[in-house]
């Protein structure tokens, strides 16, 4: 489409240049031809530059939107869900990741994810951001500076480990959290990101993967990886003191509400930005994202209404987040109607996970990082295989079937393999890292510190000093 438009404008330009010529009734001289060629080359350059500016503008905005999802979005969402004494601690974990992952990303992170072309992990080609500048990297995004691509992908690497803090909330040491998440970023996130999105990655659908897994914006890389790791963390750390007998209601659903709304808006950068261009595909992903969020908010609320006789605010916002999680891998592959279906399924499924399944097994996933991101990411990744269509994104080549709705049901199998690998990688990697960090800094605060609250014991301050 873009290509056709480009050709048309060239054609028009050529006609405009050629029209006056017959009027002169003389054949074009050599100098005239070279002038024409020069003008065409200039035009060509300008068209490329115009497209690059448009794409770059959208991608920079998208990068900022994705950063907004971590702080303030996730920080507020999680911050409101904890008890008052742990508010700053959980917000600080998100904020710290904004800083520390940025440093890691510049040193080796970007290179491990997007340098080289190995099946499991990238290389050190772009370590210290060597060779990452204004020139586009044609393998990933041919119209924007590689530096834009780099900073956009950085924002994903920030939010993913931040999601895990929802499971470890209210009982994990600050030092242990930071060390664990840095290592987790290197050992779990970087390989998964490379496998799914990196050139030559095992699961890459566009650049020669063995098991082409469709993951538009990070269903496996971001949500399954963080969600499953969150479950492992919750099991390894054990329950919060007093759970489940002692009541631990969210201290401010107003904060969570604002956070969830910021997440919803930020997700447009996350999903629509993953088109890596200001293209019709970005629009399609934008719409799918919005529709799934709306549908999931409705289905979670409906489930609650049936079960409890009331629809809660926390339920509605949790549903929206579940829908956004589930549509993440699918956003750039599915039409609006299937996006609604994915949302409805995700809202009800995640509701069931955090109410029934969590109660049956009794793990203390404090803020439901697994119940929403692990479960929603898994269901989303599988449904992507069902609903992906060549009409939205012919990723396997023109006319070739993409997902089950095109008749290519084998894609559901590929998705399953991708999901399994992501689950396995997250399970094993997280378990090993928790053991290691437990030996170095320890993971849990003491019971006294837990009762006093992490704000005071870990950071020496309180979230609310309301006395005059």
């Amino acid at each position: 489409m873009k290509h056709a438009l480009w050709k048309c404008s060239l054609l028009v330009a050529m006609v405009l240049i050629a029209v006056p010529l017959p009027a002169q009734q003389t054949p074009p001289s050599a100098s005239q031809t070279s002038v024409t060629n020069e003008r065409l080359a200039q035009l060509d350059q300008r068209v490329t530059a115009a497209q690059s500016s448009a794409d770059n503008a959208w991608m920079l905005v998208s990068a900022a939107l994705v950063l907004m999802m971590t702080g303030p979005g996730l920080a507020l969402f999680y911050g409101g869900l904890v008890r008052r004494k742990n508010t700053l601690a959980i917000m600080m974990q998100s904020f710290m990741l904004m800083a520390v992952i940025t440093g890691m990303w510049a040193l080796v992170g970007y290179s491990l994810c997007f340098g080289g072309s190995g099946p499991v992990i990238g290389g050190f080609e772009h370590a210290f951001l060597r060779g990452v500048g204004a020139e586009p990297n044609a393998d990933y995004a041919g119209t924007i500076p590689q530096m834009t691509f780099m900073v956009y992908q950085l924002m994903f690497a920030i939010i993913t480990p931040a999601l895990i803090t929802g499971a470890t909330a209210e009982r994990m040491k600050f030092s242990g959290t930071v060390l664990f998440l840095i290592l987790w970023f290197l050992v779990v996130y970087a390989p998964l990101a490379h496998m799914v999105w990196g050139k030559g990655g095992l699961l890459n659908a566009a650049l020669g993967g063995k098991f082409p897994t469709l993951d538009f914006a990070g269903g496996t890389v971001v949500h399954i990886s963080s969600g499953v790791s969150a479950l492992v963390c919750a099991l390894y750390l054990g329950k919060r003191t007093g759970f489940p007998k002692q009541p631990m209601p969210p201290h401010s659903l107003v904060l969570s509400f604002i956070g969830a709304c910021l997440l919803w808006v930020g997700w447009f950068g996350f999903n629509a930005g993953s088109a890596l261009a200001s293209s019709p595909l970005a629009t399609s992903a934008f719409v799918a994202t919005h529709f799934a969020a709306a549908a999931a908010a409705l289905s979670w609320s409906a489930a609650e209404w049936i079960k409890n006789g009331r629809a809660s605010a926390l339920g509605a916002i949790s549903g929206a987040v579940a829908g956004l999680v589930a549509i993440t891998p699918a956003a750039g592959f599915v039409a609006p109607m299937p996006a609604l279906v994915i949302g409805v399924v995700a809202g009800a499924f995640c509701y069931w996970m955090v109410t029934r399944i969590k109660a049956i097994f009794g793990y203390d996933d404090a803020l439901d990082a697994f119940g929403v991101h692990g479960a929603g990411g898994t269901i989303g990744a599988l449904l992507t295989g069902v609903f992906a269509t060549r009409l939205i994104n012919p990723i396997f080549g023109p006319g070739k079937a993409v997902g089950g709705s095109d008749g290519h049901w084998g894609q559901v199998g590929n998705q399953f393999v991708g999901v399994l690998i992501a689950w396995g990688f997250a399970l094993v990697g997280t378990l090993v890292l928790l053991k290691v960090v437990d030996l170095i800094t320890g993971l849990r605060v003491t019971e006294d510190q837990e009762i006093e609250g992490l704000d005071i014991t870990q950071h020496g301050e309180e979230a609310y000093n309301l006395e005059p």
Partner: protein
Amino acid sequence: MMKLEAIIQPSRFESVKDALREVGIEGMTVTEVRGHGRQKGHTEVYRGREYTVDLLPKLKLEMVLPDKLVNTVVDTILKTAKTGKIGDGKIFLSRVEEAIRIRNEERGENAL
């Protein structure tokens, strides 16, 4: 002198305060408290987890009154704090031995 403690519904506080001012009460101490009598609490549900909240917010008014005002004040509170439903609260009266104003060391009812 009598000490009056009244536990009332927070929603009735403004009416009670205005009515007391009209009958000449110049000072009172108010505390936000939580408690329950026969009124049952309510249930809150957060992501499927139920919490029973049985301590409900109330306001506690405290004032020490000269004997002649006690009946008027009790009547005023009864009239203005009542909604007729369970949970309207209670009034307690007790005798006070002495009152001393810190500023000028006045004693007895003069200090009120």
